[in-house]
C-alpha cells in the first residue's frame, strides 16, 4: 500500500481577516489510499470560513493518480463555492507534468514556493 502522511497548519496572513490553511503532504496518492485521504481535506474545507485559502504543499509527493486529480479538482470547486482559493505549491517535475497533462494548470494556481502561494492567497 502506498503511504501518505499529511500535516495541517495555519499560515499567518498579512490581511488579518483572511484564513490560510496549509496542508503538507508526503508520500504517494494512489488507488490504495486516496479515498481514505480525501475526507480529511474535505473536513478542512468544511471548517474554513468564506474568503479563505487552502495551500497544498506537494513538494514531497512522489506520485498521484487520476482519481487524486479528480479530488483536487473537486476541492477547487468546493472552495470556489465558498469564495475561497486553492493553491497547489511546489510540485516536483513529474507531479507538475501530471497537473499539466490533465489541464489542471489552466484552472488552478500552481506555485514554486509557499511564499508565492501566500501572496496569491
Amino acid at each position, binding site marked *: 500500500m502506498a503511504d501518505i502522511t499529511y500535516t495541517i497548519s495555519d499560515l499567518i496572513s498579512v490581511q488579518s481577516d483572511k484564513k490560510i490553511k496549509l496542508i503538507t503532504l508526503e508520500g504517494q496518492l494512489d*488507488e490504495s489510499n486516496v479515498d481514505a485521504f480525501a475526507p480529511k481535506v474535505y473536513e478542512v474545507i468544511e471548517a474554513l470560513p468564506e474568503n479563505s485559502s487552502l495551500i497544498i504543499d506537494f513538494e514531497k509527493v512522489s506520485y498521484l493518480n487520476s482519481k487524486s486529480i479528480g479530488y483536487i479538482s473537486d476541492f477547487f470547486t468546493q472552495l470556489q463555492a465558498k469564495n475561497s482559493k486553492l493553491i497547489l505549491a511546489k510540485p516536483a517535475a513529474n507531479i507538475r507534468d501530471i497537473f499539466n497533462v490533465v*489541464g489542471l494548470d*489552466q484552472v488552478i494556481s500552481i506555485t514554486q514556493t509557499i511564499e508565492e502561494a501566500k501572496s496569491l492567497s
Partner: protein
Amino acid sequence: MNKQQTPNTPTEIKIQLPTNAYFMSGIRDFTLALIRNMTDFSETWAYRFQSVVDELCNNAIEHGSDKDDKILITFLTNPDQSIQITVEDNGTNPEAKTAKEVLEVMNKNKDKKLTELGIRGRGLAFIVDKWTDKLEVEDREGGGLRVTVTKNLHDPKFQTEVNNDPTHIILNN
C-alpha cells in the same frame, strides 16, 4: 547477446498480479526502473509510463475484475524504437464494459473540461491517451479486456526531451 549487455532484441516481461490496488506501488517502482534501465526514454517518460501503467492496472482491477482475480501486465520493449504495454483482465466484474463501451466513455470524456468531470473518468482520456502514440482496447476471447498502448521513441512529441538525464553516467572516472 551477452547476458550482461543492453538487450538489442525485443524483450518481453510479464507480471501476473492479484486484483488488489495494494500492489501497485511495487509495480510503479518496477516500471520506473524498467524504463530507466532498459530503454532510451528520458526520465520524464519513465514517470509518464509509471502513470500509464498505474491507470491501466487500476482500471483492470477495479472495472474489469472481481476481487479474487488476477490481471496480467506485459511489457514489450524494442530497444531504440518503442515500448508497448498490455494489461489484460478477465472481465469477472459483473459491471465490466466491452471494448466498444470503454472507447465510447473515453471519447466522451476527452471532450469534457477538467471541472466538468466528477472525481473519475480522467485515467484513459486525460493521461493514458495523451502519453501514448497508440491505444487499443480489445475484447478477450475468454472474457475481459486487453488494453495495449505503444509509445515510439522517435516520435516528434518526444524529440524535444531526448535523454538529457545527467544521473545515468556509467563507470565514469
